[in-house]
């Protein structure tokens, strides 16, 4: 399935039929008044992170428009949508990775456990220890496998001594399903592993600091189907302990690993709902067009 769409005129706003907006409002939980054009329920009962009316501009470019979304505990939420619709941008708001881009400006509020992460008092370093990230291209540090995993615990001072650090390295690698493969060569360079192993190393690196949320931006797009299947299994296991937000272009993958799915279009969050509902019974026409492959 191709995910490319012919770029529509950016000035054209998505017009959501009135009736559907009303339906969306009906869906929202009683008591919570969230102003949103998104179809479906953006809130969840047990949210670890909440985003409210988030807007992101890159200079003049309005990349994310008025997005409100909850990230539920111990669940996987998939962000899907055509290329350039702002999935990565939104994802990177959740751990303030956009701070590293000079032109990016983020408005709105995002909370982690009820605390606004964009507040002045929030320490970015601490935030990123709580909201880990796995990137599209595996990017292990050009250091040994051991050092890759140990880096996070070390800079955050999580291990008191070498034995504890060894322990963290082993459990993280084990959780990422990599321990058996690399236990005899922890001192080999992380960059010498295969692509799939590297990506699992990056996941192990992220969970080594014991975050609450793991953000994954197309983590399997550079991998073959077998490596992809392993990572998907891994994501399913990790769900026991972490909240996971995954951006993917692979509909089957979204369907396989996630419990909720959010569909983005031209910077707007068009529809969000339970994954099987989105894939079997999308309520918005744009969502339907996208998942049935009518785009491009």
């Amino acid at each position, binding site marked *: 399935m191709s995910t490319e769409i012919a770029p529509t005129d950016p000035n054209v706003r998505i017009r959501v039929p009135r009736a559907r907006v009303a339906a969306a409002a009906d869906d929202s939980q009683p008591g919570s008044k969230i102003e949103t054009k998104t179809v479906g329920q953006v809130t969840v009962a047990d949210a670890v992170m909440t985003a409210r009316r988030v807007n992101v501009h890159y200079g003049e470019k309005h990349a994310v428009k008025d997005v409100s979304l909850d990230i539920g505990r111990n669940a996987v939420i998939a962000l899907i949508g055509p290329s350039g619709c702002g999935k990565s941008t939104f994802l990177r708001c959740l751990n303030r990775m956009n701070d590293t881009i000079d032109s990016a400006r983020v408005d709105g509020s995002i909370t982690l456990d009820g605390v606004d992460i964009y507040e002045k008092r929030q320490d970015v*370093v601490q935030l*990123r220890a709580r909201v880990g990230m796995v*990137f599209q291209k595996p990017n292990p540090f*050009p250091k040994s496998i051991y050092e890759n995993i140990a880096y*996070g615990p070390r800079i955050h001072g999580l291990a008191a001594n070498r034995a504890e650090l060894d322990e963290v390295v082993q459990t993280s690698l084990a959780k990422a399903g990599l321990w058996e493969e690399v236990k005899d060569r922890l001192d080999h*360079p992380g960059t010498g592993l295969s692509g799939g192993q590297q990506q699992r190393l990056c996941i192990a690196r*992220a969970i080594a600091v014991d975050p609450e949320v793991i953000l994954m931006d197309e983590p399997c797009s550079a991998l073959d189907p077998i490596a992809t299947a392993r990572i998907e299994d891994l994501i399913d296991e990790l769900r026991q302990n972490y909240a996971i937000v995954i951006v993917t272009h692979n509909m089957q993958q979204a369907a396989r690993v996630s419990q909720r799915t959010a569909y983005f279009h031209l910077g707007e969050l068009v529809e969000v709902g339970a994954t099987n509902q989105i894939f079997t019974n999308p309520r918005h026409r744009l969502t339907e067009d996208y998942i049935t492959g009518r785009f491009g």
Partner: protein
Amino acid sequence: MSEATQARARTSQQKVAAGLKRRYRAELRFRSYGIAAVALGLLFVAFLFFSIISKGYTAFEQTFVRLEVSYAADKIDPDGKRAPADLEGANYEALVRQALRERFPEVTERGDLRKLYGLLSGSAETVVRARVLADPNRIGSRETLWLMADDHVDMLVKGHIDRNVPEDERSIDDRELGWIDRLTAEHRVEVRFNPKFLTGGDSREPEQAGVRGAVMGSLFTLLVTLFLSFPIGVAAAVYLEEFAKRNRLTDIIEVNINNLAAVPSIVFGLLGLAMFIQFFGLPRSAPLVGGLVLTLMTLPTIIITSRAALKAVPPSIREAAFGMGASPVQAVLHHVLPLAMPGMLTGAIIGMARALGESAPLLMIGMVAFIADVPKTLSDPATVLPVQVYLWASSPERAFVERTSGAIMVLLAFLLVMNAAAVFLRSRFERRW
């Protein structure tokens, strides 16, 4: 596939095949141009090395004359007290002259004697003094010593003076020739390795002149340059590349750094003269000031190459570090800088090599003076190798020609050692992935 498309495919294949030959020919031609260019370059380098080494190796050798010197007690220490001051101040020149007169007893006339004494270098007496001071028990005995000959004797022995030109056009007259020939016949003349060329300072007497002063001057100057320009340059590059916001000010700074890299080096010399010497009152001719001036000159180069090295570090490494919660400084120190270090070292070595060969800005701050003493500190007056080459090249004595080439050889060796150190360091950093 239809007939027509098949036919079309066939003719395309033929066209490709026809073009293929032309392409290979072009490729071959291009390759041979490249090889020719490299070969030409190597030829020039080989020629340069050959001409310098063939001219310069003799600077490491010097003509010595074997003489029996008697450490006459009445000349060195008449009152027999062995007082160090007496031993130090005794007239050793007289002993050397005595030794010469013993060889040539028939020479008695004053003018002739002066010529005879002129066969030996003025440094001969210091050799004799050193022997006595090392062991005062030698007083009263005789010893055979190899004493350095004067430079014009050396030139004759090395074949740089033509015996066949008329006597009045030669720097050595027939009588001196006779003496030298007699000494040679007695196997008293030998061309031997001359450590003084490497261990001595500059001198007006070519046979006594050495490169040590210039080598130490270059070393001190480059150390100052390295220890200032590398940290400052790397820090500036890291700040500009990793931390500074892109705005008008940083753009202006960037343009200015690029322009500074192209400023003729003599301008930095003038700047150094005005700033370090006239304003801050630092000493003239000092390696410290030379190093400061060369720092100004090399900083732009180091900043530019360091920034290029930082740019070459893939952004994914920074993202990975930030994603793990590293602070910007941690991301740079732990990940970016180690990866950029080999490139930065390359830049530093290019800058240092240029600084080593630089003479113009150092002329402006007085490092061109004649300095016989080997500098011991950063503020002693000194000169540097390229300036020493220039000074010797412009000296009239024939014997300075080989010394000029010899000094160039030392300069090249210095450069090779420096580059080897940089290559070693770079491979050390690269091995740490």
